């Protein structure tokens, strides 16, 4: 338990001090949201209609693109070998690293989303729905993303391929996240069912992600 706590603190410290984890992620999110009106036009009615989708897409890209160096950096400086050799189960260590990443990258995105929602003229109910769905859904994105991050150790010249591998797996999260957020704007569907399924997807990814990523790391390091 102590070792896991130390790992959590270390990863959060690195994220805050080096590479500017949280601010860069939020900045990327802001830029994506800023780009959309240039692409679709400054029509506020349209932006209000597609606002939750824009925020979800922005958060999806921001949280996944920030993830690719999670294990590769540890592999380069040797600390991944120490984690592998320690008595802590690798699956738990992976889960703790993912948690640290979510706390430093995912959570700031959730906090930034209501502010960015103002750019898209969302009303308070919709802002609440988007923030709540992002809070429930971004952990799923991080925990699916760690699988891709673990492949980055095997695939040295990775880059875009990790996004190609991971993004299709995030489709269900995107569908139910946007569906739940949209119920506050349009939709005759109640908020409950899609939101509950979103939570279920998050819980599933909490299990599958660390196991798959740990397996990929073990095989990638051989």
């Amino acid at each position, binding site marked *: 338990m102590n070792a896991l706590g130390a790992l959590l603190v270390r990863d959060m410290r690195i994220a805050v001090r080096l590479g500017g984890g949280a601010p860069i992620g939020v900045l990327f999110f802001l830029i994506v949201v800023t780009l959309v009106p240039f692409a679709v036009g400054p029509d506020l009615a349209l932006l209000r209609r597609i606002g939750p989708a824009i925020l979800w897409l922005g958060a999806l890209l921001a949280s996944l693109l920030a993830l690719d160096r999670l294990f590769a950096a540890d592999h380069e400086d040797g600390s991944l070998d120490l984690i592998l050799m320690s008595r802590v189960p690798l699956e738990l260590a992976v889960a703790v690293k993912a948690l640290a990443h979510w706390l430093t990258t995912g959570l700031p995105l959730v906090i930034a989303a209501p502010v960015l929602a103002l750019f898209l003229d969302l009303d308070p109910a919709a802002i609440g729905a988007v923030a709540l769905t992002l809070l429930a859904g971004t952990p799923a994105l991080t925990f699916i993303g760690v699988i891709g991050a673990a492949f980055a150790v*095997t*695939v040295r010249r990775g880059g875009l391929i990790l996004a190609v*591998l991971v993004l*299709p*797996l995030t*489709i*269900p999260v995107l*569908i139910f996240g946007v569906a739940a957020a949209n119920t506050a704007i349009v939709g005759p569907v109640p908020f409950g069912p899609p939101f509950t399924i979103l939570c279920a997807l998050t819980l599933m990814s909490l299990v599958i992600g660390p196991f798959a990523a740990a397996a990929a790391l073990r095989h*990638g390091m051989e």
Partner: protein
Amino acid sequence: MALIDLANPTRFLNLVARVLPLLAGAAAIAFAVGLYQALLVAPNDYQQGATVKIMFIHVPSAWLAMFCWGAMTIAALGTLVWRHPLADVAAKAAAPLGAAFTFLCLLTGSLWGRPMWGAYWVWDGRLTSVLVLFLMYLGVIALWRVVEDPSRAARAVAILTLVGAINLPIIKFSVDWWATLHQPASVLRLGGPTIHPSILVPLLVMALAFVLLFLTLHLAAMRNEILRRRVRTLRLLQARGA
């Protein structure tokens, strides 16, 4: 002959050399019978006319598209759990075949959709989940290509295949929830098929032909992959000796 005996590539190659002509011949016969029945015997649909014939290619391709991922999943377990030496060869050979069947399914589907639905593509649940399946096949093929060492690539791909096998039903379910226009499953369903036998029989013959074609191409691709690896090993040895 047990599966473990085939762990010896030479023995496997001998078996392939004996089985492959038979399989290819059986596939050719099944295609001849199936295409004859599908194109000349089976009646036209009273609403869709002759375009319904596309179904005899479209539906077996869709089945094979999913079947290939199933085969890759079993091969992935073979790589990770049983460490069978030919499992990763089987997985690698199946990926382009699965991508090809998926592409064929999408292509025939959009050619069929144009006269029937009025558009080559609609964002319908089933179409979208097959498109995602196609993207995942391409991802697997790309992962095979970016890792130089075949055994490392094999284990990475095996994990991705297993994750995909868990995720594909979830993607399919969520996409169906998202939107659906395509007709529901009408052959494999509780309470028996809803298709008339005059169309169902040719469809099943075509499905058999597609399975035989897959087996033929898969074994041939596995043989080629084994030979390719032998060439690679010989080249490495030669380079070391020089």
